[in-house]
């Protein structure tokens, strides 16, 4: 019975499970009338869940090391919570059409399950839990991607996602099997001394890492992202681009630092190449996109490259800045998606050219979008500038001048396409602009939240300083 008390160490997971079970039961029991309050309940409880778990705890290990709670993981979970909450706020309109009304419960339920999977990913101390987490995160996501049953694109995206995720799981597992074979253990804590950088271990590591790179959509494992982001319901896309990516990024950095410290030469070399490829290729594809969702997909691929800069150094500073980057990225990207969702739901328009003259009809939405674009592009005084500057600092600190220079030069390309959106809204004229529309209340809250985040999280040093207490370097 002693082991059960270990569950108490998994506070976040427990509260999330309670939330999931409650929503599942609610969905099951409540009638049509009760379902009206489903979304408010989901959002309220999610907010509650976020709040009660917002303060990170001390480091703790449960179930013989299977589950490890790191304070930084607590921070990341809070970030994921916040992102999920924002995504939920933006989800109301997704189900306003009657054909999808009945699936309201499923959406929240499935999303939260993937969130639980991500919790496991970032808190696992063992490859088994890690694998379970990854699968918990990706299998329900594929159903979410394919949720829009009548939409061909959605179906195609779902198929691509599930099959490629399975394929990537296969590769990942294959890698783990060799790591197991060469070390004899699957505990994170036990593995580092047994890793001696022999060819088999390196192969195992790369195969394993490829599975995570897939989730993070690093080039060349990114090809699914564009299609899936485009095909998925926009709400799911935003979830994919922020939450799923954030969890994978943090899981990767923890693994690299804690488990594969002995392979630092290898993974730095790999990441060096991958970061350049990811940023550049992401940018090159983003400049040619017309569809807003696809555009944001490639933009987020390129952003993943910047996120990875935080891993390069293998330092605590790098990890801190990576998490901070995720934090800021959450607001910027979700602000952009919030606007896209709002416009898509009312008009069904998704192309950048549809946004022409948006400022004349929807000034507020345009301003939010502009802030999001500037923040993503790293323009001060918006938060994106600070996170980008800091993550560059982390890489420069370790002497990666050339890499940072390439990354920094790439911001020019990225600024080009972010400005393209701004240009469409503010400068271009349209004979047939999107009519003035009213965003629903929840989404408005989310947009306000994101705007505040964009404006405040950079300038106010509290955020980055709080995060900076928890990082650790290669061990």
């Amino acid at each position: 019975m002693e082991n059960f008390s270990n569950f108490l160490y998994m506070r976040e997971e427990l509260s999330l499970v309670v939330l999931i079970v409650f929503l599942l039961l609610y969905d099951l029991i409540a009638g049509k009338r009760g379902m009206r309050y489903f979304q408010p309940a989901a959002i309220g409880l999610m907010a509650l869940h976020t709040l009660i778990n917002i303060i990170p705890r001390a480091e703790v290990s449960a179930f013989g090391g299977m589950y490890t709670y790191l304070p930084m993981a607590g921070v990341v979970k809070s970030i994921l919570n916040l992102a999920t909450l924002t995504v939920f706020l933006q989800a109301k309109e997704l189900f306003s059409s009657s054909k999808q009304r009945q699936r309201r419960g499923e959406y929240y339920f499935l999303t939260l399950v993937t969130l639980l999977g991500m919790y496991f990913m970032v808190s696992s101390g063992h490859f088994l839990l890690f694998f379970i987490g990854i699968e918990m995160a990706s299998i329900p996501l594929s159903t979410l991607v394919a949720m829009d049953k009548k939409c061909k694109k959605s179906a195609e995206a779902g198929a691509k996602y599930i099959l490629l995720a399975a394929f990537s799981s296969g590769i990942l597992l294959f890698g783990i099997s060799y790591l197991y074979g060469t070390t004899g253990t699957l505990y994170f804590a036990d593995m580092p001394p047994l890793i001696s950088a022999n060819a088999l271990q390196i192969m195992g590591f790369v195969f394993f890492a490829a599975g995570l790179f897939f989730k993070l959509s690093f080039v060349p494992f990114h090809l699914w992202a564009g299609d899936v982001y485009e095909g998925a319901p926009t709400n799911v896309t935003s979830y994919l681009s922020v939450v799923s990516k954030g969890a994978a990024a943090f899981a990767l950095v923890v693994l690299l630092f804690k488990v594969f410290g002995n392979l630092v030469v290898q993974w730095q070399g790999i990441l060096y190449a991958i970061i350049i490829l990811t940023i550049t290729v992401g940018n090159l594809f983003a400049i040619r996109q017309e569809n807003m969702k696809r555009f944001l997909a490639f933009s987020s691929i390129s952003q993943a490259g910047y996120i990875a800069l935080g891993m390069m150094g293998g330092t605590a500073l790098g990890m801190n800045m990576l998490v901070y980057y995720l934090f800021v990225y959450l607001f910027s990207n979700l602000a952009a998606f919030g606007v896209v969702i709002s416009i898509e739901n009312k008009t069904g328009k998704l192309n950048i050219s549809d946004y022409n003259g948006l400022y004349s009809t929807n000034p507020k939405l345009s301003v939010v979008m502009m802030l999001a674009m500037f923040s993503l592009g790293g323009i001060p005084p918006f938060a994106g500038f600070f996170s980008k500057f800091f993550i560059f600092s982390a890489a420069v600190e370790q002497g990666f001048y050339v890499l940072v220079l390439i990354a920094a030069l790439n911001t020019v390309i990225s600024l080009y396409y972010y400005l393209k959106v701004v240009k469409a809204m503010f400068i271009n004229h349209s004979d047939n602009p999107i009519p003035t529309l009213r965003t629903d209340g929840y989404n408005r809250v989310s947009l306000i939240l994101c705007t505040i985040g964009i404006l405040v999280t950079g300038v106010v040093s509290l955020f980055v300083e709080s995060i900076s207490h928890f990082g650790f370097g290669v061990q």
Partner: protein
Amino acid sequence: MEYTLLILLLPMLSFVGIGLLGRKLSHRAAGISGTLVLTAVTLLSYLTAFDYFTTQKVNGVWQAIQPYNTTWLNVGERLHIDLGILLDPISVMMLVVISTVSLMVHIYSLGYMKGEKGFQRYYSFLSLFTFSMMGLVLATNIFQMYIFWELVGVSSYLLIGFYYTKPEAVAASKKAFIVTRFADLFFLIGILVLSYFTQTFDFEAIMGGDGSILSSALGTTFLGASALTWAMALVFIGAAGKSAMFPLHVWLPDAMEGPTPVSALIHAATMVVAGVFLVARLFPIYIGFTPEVLQGIAYVGAFTALFAAIIAVVQTDIKRVLAFSTISQIGFMMVALGVSTSMKLTPEDHGGLGYMASMFHLFTHAMFKSLLFLGAGSVILAVNSNDMKDMGGLRKHLPITHVTFLVACLAIAGIPPLSGFVSKDEIVTAAYQFSTGMGIWMTVTAGFTAFYMFRLYFRIFWGKEYRGEVKPKESPRSMTYPLIFLALITLVGGFIPFGQFVTADGAPYTIRLNSTVAIISVVVALVGIGLATLLYRKEEKRASWLPSRSSGLYKAAYNRFYIDDAYLFVTKKIIFNNISRPLAWFDRHVIDGAMNGLAWITNRASDAIKGFQSGSLQWYAWVFLLGTLLITLFAILL
């Protein structure tokens, strides 16, 4: 003598005042106030001259004094640009010249410019010019001189372009400014070189000591000549630009597009002799350390003098004739400076004669040349044309103009006892002392001078009867009085014991005429006049004798020996079309193209790799696997 500061301040105030009030002032008020200020300045100048020449002689030598000096700008540890007033014989002499001519022009313009649009502007510019010119001659240091050098340049620009709606005037003003600016560039470089070695701009510091301050400049050689030689040669190029020496003379004839009184003031009497003044100011260095440059100056001056005289013979625009005459006469002054061989001017050593003669000629020339211009202005006003073809027989209609003009013509031709005779004779004497060849050259030039001046005189006032529709009227008194006044000075100017006041070393000298040279000069002058009388006094038939006899040379001279075309070729064809245009193209297409090229490359790269995102599930997996394998290989090799 602190009141000399007022000489600078008054015209400045007048410029700012009239300039700012502008059209709010009536024409009359602007003209009168400008003239009054100038009268005050003139009186102050005379007072200064009187004061100076009565008090500042120590041991028989005129002393330079600085009544006022203040730092304007520090440029380095030791270098500083000062603004001040330096009084010595030549600056005082220049004060008198400038204020006199300027006052005459101010008065004259009251009549000449009457009713012109922009009358106030005109007077404000005149004040600006007077201020700048005063500042130039009173400069205590070479940089102050450069500052005012530029300012006179811009006043000249503004005044030449006074009729700014006339494209020719605009072009001429532009040309004048740019050509002189081009020369000023060398002046500036010269200053930089000089000051680099001497670490001072101050005239007295440079020239006052025993020359040790120049030793480092002398000791440094660059491309076979000492740095000092370079510096002084560069400074002379600046002087040559302002004083319209060949080949930088091209701007001056065109500058005649400006109002005629302006030509009289700026382009005959004062600004154009600034170059001569500059060389005279730096004379101790030229003669003491870089005599080779001084000789060069002599040759440039001599060539220019004859060259311009030849062109003047064939011009038909009366102001152009006078302009080339001015160039030629400034050539005389330059020659005079150049043929000097020492500072001394004693019965034993005539080395400094040229310097004295040059300054003297500067003085007399200012008077009679401004008189000629003002006379020409009177004529132009009467017949409303610049061209000789439209004139003839005007002596009856314009009696005062005629007489004063004749006086000036006789003076410039070198007929005793008029002022021009004395000063020019000194120059020719100095030239003979230098070398016989130079003497003969200058004598011939003097003969040409007499010829073209009387050609001008006869074609205006004699020859055919005037056939214009309107009967020409003598000009108003505001114009004729200055003519008379200047004519009087021209008449008696030769009797001024100039050597008592202005010599190279400051020691007085009594002018003695060299009778041989004087007789030769007079004979040559008379021959010139006689020839002109023969050809032009009566009628037009004979006038065409010259063109028909020497058509090739005539044509070449008429076209000013194509120097302007050469300039036009260089500026228009080479600089504008072959440098600037390709450069602009280069900037747009190569440099900017490179920047645009980066964008293009980015877009192309984006196009090139779009195939990777083929949409095929299996391709995606294939890339995934290949990537994994490659990275594995890469990681193992690391």
